[in-house]
């Protein structure tokens, strides 16, 4: 994190920031008073940056238990006249959506910005969701930056816009903004006002009577967007070929036009304010265009909306051919609207628009590159880290289900442990949906016995997920006497998104002590039986899961062992393979330790035909020791 750059006061100075840091900086330049978020890639570093500077800048920052609570907290600050920001990934907006659509009706007072990071290509997500449809459903204004610098500027301006139209403003980031780095010219930092108050006459209601007001406020935003500098056109004023582009794909589009040598023939309309559409601006450019290409991440949102706008005015505009995802001209290997756009996809689309082929390199060169580089790249599956307690947990859960023998079903949730659905987790998980959903599913399965369902069910969630959204389903299970086994993989952190604290960790986002709320205290308070087990003791864990699968009612098994990557987790042991005892392929084990257990630290020494432990990777968890039928794996203390 470029904290030093982020806290620099010099207006006018140019620094290098990530997109997430730029958003944080923009908020601080706007006089941010309140920030709240739930971590989710690729958005997590916005609040992490803000939390690191909150105390010295005199504003408030928190990791909230979930996105809805985060948004509600930010709205409270905005009601009190403060500037507030809440940040989430696309999935998080689904969680907060009920509040957002209500908030739109009642409006806000102080500036409120909702940052949502979409993840085209799902680099670190379970699905590719395009936030813009939900923003449209909420009738709220939306901004989409094309560069890191613009992310800062848009964030800063979004607060002004919010206060002007009295609505929360959404900013849609994507992975290539959030995690890209770029030059940012700094503006002046502004401190929060130091006073906050809800006017006694103010009302923030959700009532359908306010629907017209919401539409009026949207129209006001549209009017401002018509002349916004975040929308820009470059190219001949009467270009017959037009590209309408939003987000970081704009840089690919500009580059493609230059590489194809058609800057004098193609117009590029960059849209930064994407909802409501700046209709007059769009119509003015559709007026000179006969072929229009749309470039945007994930779904053809602008494409569809502009075509609807065109239809309304077609009689006047005449015939226009539209190229994009609907026409199949903008498509990756998996088809249109699937996966992330790349410079290659964009240049192929622009090439189609202008009817000029583009060959970046000769086929011979490509063959040479592939022959030289690709065979050397080792194929690697997504895997739990060496020493990860989740691997041990899934080994035990899988074994318990097999020993139970009733075709038990393991339900998965959202976190590192979602990998339990893959090889590294022995394909144990059979469902993965949304945060906390495994517990609601388990509660439902737990009532199916009378309908003929005989299979045992185990739900697997992480500790942060437990606080996020598990308790309503647990209460439901208890209330309705559902038979349910919840296994909480408690690794003492929100691991997947980068070790953020949570209500169980005993510290806040800003590093202050916070009263820890143990998972067992919550579960016991709900009247549920609780057991706590160290997952690295796999035999005991197998026994616990097996036994609990055969008991009635709702119960919770906490498998507690810290994430092996936490800085305070010190390696105390290391595993080694005794080359005399390991007999390699001569053993009937069929390389169980290396092939099935699949810890990255357990490697197969091809030259010697024996298992070997990579001493650099081994975390010394010791779980592999019990796997070997010949006791060839030993654990020894490290100094």
């Amino acid at each position, binding site marked *: 994190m470029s904290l030093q750059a982020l806290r620099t006061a010099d207006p006018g100075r140019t620094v290098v920031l990530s997109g997430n840091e730029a958003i944080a900086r923009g908020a601080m330049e706007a006089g941010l008073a309140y920030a709240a978020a739930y971590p989710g890639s690729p958005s997590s570093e916005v609040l992490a940056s803000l939390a690191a500077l909150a105390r010295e800048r005199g504003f408030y920052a928190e990791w909230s238990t979930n996105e809805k609570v985060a948004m509600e907290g930010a709205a409270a600050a905005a009601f009190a006249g403060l500037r507030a920001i809440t940040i989430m990934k696309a999935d998080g907006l689904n969680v907060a959506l009920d509040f957002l659509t209500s908030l739109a009706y009642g409006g806000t007072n102080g500036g409120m910005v909702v940052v949502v990071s979409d993840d085209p290509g799902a680099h670190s997500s379970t699905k590719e969701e395009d936030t813009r449809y939900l923003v449209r459903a909420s009738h709220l204004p939306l901004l989409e930056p094309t560069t890191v610098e613009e992310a800062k500027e848009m964030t800063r301006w979004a607060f002004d816009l919010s206060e002007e139209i009295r609505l929360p403003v959404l900013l849609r980031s994507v992975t290539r903004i959030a995690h890209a780095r770029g030059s940012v010219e700094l503006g002046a930092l502004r401190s929060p006002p130091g006073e906050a108050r809800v006017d006694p006459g103010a009302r923030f209601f959700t009532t359908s009577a306010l629907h017209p007001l919401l539409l009026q406020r949207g129209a006001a935003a549209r009017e401002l967007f018509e002349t916004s500098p975040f929308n820009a056109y470059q190219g001949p004023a009467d270009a017959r070929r037009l590209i309408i582009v939003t987000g970081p794909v704009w840089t690919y589009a500009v580059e493609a036009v230059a590489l194809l040598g058609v800057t004098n023939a193609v117009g590029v309309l960059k849209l930064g304010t994407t909802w409501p559409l700046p209709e007059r601006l769009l119509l003015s450019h559709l007026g000179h265009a006969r072929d229009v290409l749309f470039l945007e991440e994930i779904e053809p949102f602008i494409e569809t909306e502009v075509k609807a706008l065109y239809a309304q005015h077609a009689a006047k505009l005449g015939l226009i051919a539209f190229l994009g995802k609907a026409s199949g001209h903008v498509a990756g290997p998996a088809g249109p609207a699937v996966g992330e756009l790349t410079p290659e996809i964009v240049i192929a689309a622009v090439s189609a628009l202008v009817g000029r082929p583009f060959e970046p390199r000769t086929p011979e060169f490509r063959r040479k590159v592939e022959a030289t580089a690709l065979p050397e790249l080792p194929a690697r599956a997504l895997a739990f880290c060496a020493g990860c307690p989740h691997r041990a947990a899934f080994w035990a859960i*899988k*074994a*318990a289900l*097999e*020993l*139970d*023998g009733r075709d038990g079903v393991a339900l998965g949730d959202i976190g590192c442990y979602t990998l339990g659905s893959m090889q590294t987790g*022995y394909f144990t998980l059979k469902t993965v949906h949304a945060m906390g959903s495994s517990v609601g599913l388990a509660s439902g399965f737990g009532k199916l016995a009378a309908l003929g369902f005989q299979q045992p069910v185990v739900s697997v969630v992480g500790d942060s997920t437990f606080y996020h959204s598990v308790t309503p389903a647990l209460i439901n299970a208890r209330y309705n006497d559902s038979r349910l086994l919840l296994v909480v993989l408690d690794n003492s952190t929100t691991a997947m998104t980068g070790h953020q604290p949570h209500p169980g960790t005993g510290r806040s986002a800003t590093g202050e002590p916070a009263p820890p709320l143990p998972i067992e205290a919550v579960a016991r308070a709900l009247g549920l039986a609780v057991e706590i087990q160290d997952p690295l003791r796999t035999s005991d864990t*197998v*026994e616990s899961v*097996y036994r609990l699968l*055969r008991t009635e009612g709702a119960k919770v098994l906490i498998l507690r062992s810290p994430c092996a990557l936490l800085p305070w987790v010190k390696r105390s042991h290391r595993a080694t393979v005794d080359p005399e005892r390991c007999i390699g392929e001569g053993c*009937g*084990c*069929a390389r*169980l330790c290396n092939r*099935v257990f699949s810890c990255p630290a357990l490697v197969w020494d091809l030259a010697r035909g024996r298992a070997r432990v990579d001493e650099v990777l081994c975390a010394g968890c010791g779980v592999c020791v019990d*796997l*070997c*039928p010949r006791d060839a794996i030993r654990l020894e203390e490290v100094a």
Partner: protein
Amino acid sequence: MDARGVEVERGGPADLQARVLGAGLCTACGACLGHCPYLKTLGERVAFIHPCPLPQGRCFEVCPRVSLDPDRLDGQIFGSGPADPLLGAHLSLHFARALDPEVKQRGQYGGVATALTLFALGSGAADAALLTGGSPTAAPHPIVARERASVLAATGTKYSACATLAPLAPLLRDSAATIAVVGRPCQVAALRKIEARGEAAHRLALVIGVFCFWALTPAFYRFLVSRADLARATKMDIPKEGGVVFSVNGGAVRVPLDEVRPFIRPACQSCFDPTAEWADLAVGSTEHDPGWNALVVRTARGQALLGAAVNAGLLEVKPYPAERIPILRAAVRGKKLRVLDALDAGRAEAAYLHLSPERRAAVRAEERAGA
């Protein structure tokens, strides 16, 4: 090929899974455990915790529920020669009981299996004994006993399918101990298959089989939890008549057999060997006098050990009453005929039995004689 020129069937984990474990025909003897890291047991169930990719394996070869050929086992243990088609090869039949008061009090019926085990360990005939420990009201567990206290902790019949043989493989691998085993008939058959592989050469000092007409599933123990009056039972017995009898505080609590019958392990319904035909000595109930055991002496080794134990004053024996023998034979005949009928009907659960035409005919002859 075996000595008779009969093909020995080879198979692997996939076959074991398809024909035994997945088919619900596993008797949880435990013979396949202890070598293989894929095969584990919990709650009297044996399962592959991950699929093993090997095409052939020990697990298949030692399983008493694949390719069980009584003629081959007879040949292996007794040499060739006609065996009794119902009671198996034997030298003599007795009633027997322990003379040690503690053994008599804690053991089942006459405490003969306990007394013989203690003698085997005490006389140096065996260094360790594989036994089944626990109370009659909770799932039992395997015990490796080397001294009197551990043997006494394993007294009394357990009526469910403990994987008693699970510690055998590590014991054979990691020690030089000679071993006595007290096991169910399926476990005795498995032990002989293990011996035939050469894994236990000169290490199995004594194999005591216990009569077993069926075992119960662990669901039986969950049933018992609902019966607070049985929580402190010290012994359990299933006599020929009168249901299931629990000894509680010096008295007897009876549970009707019909309440227990649903817990019979399905795999046991296709058992063809209720009297442990390949044991050195087989021990069971007399169904007559609860102070004595029925004792079948099958091998010369068993006979020698029994003689030494009697000479040492640990046991007394008397001839099996001639008028009781038809009752024992009838019980065994009934069980064998049910399984033979299933085999003749081509039912999958009996297909593990490789019965020669002669053996089938011999059992059928008993049917006619008994009818």
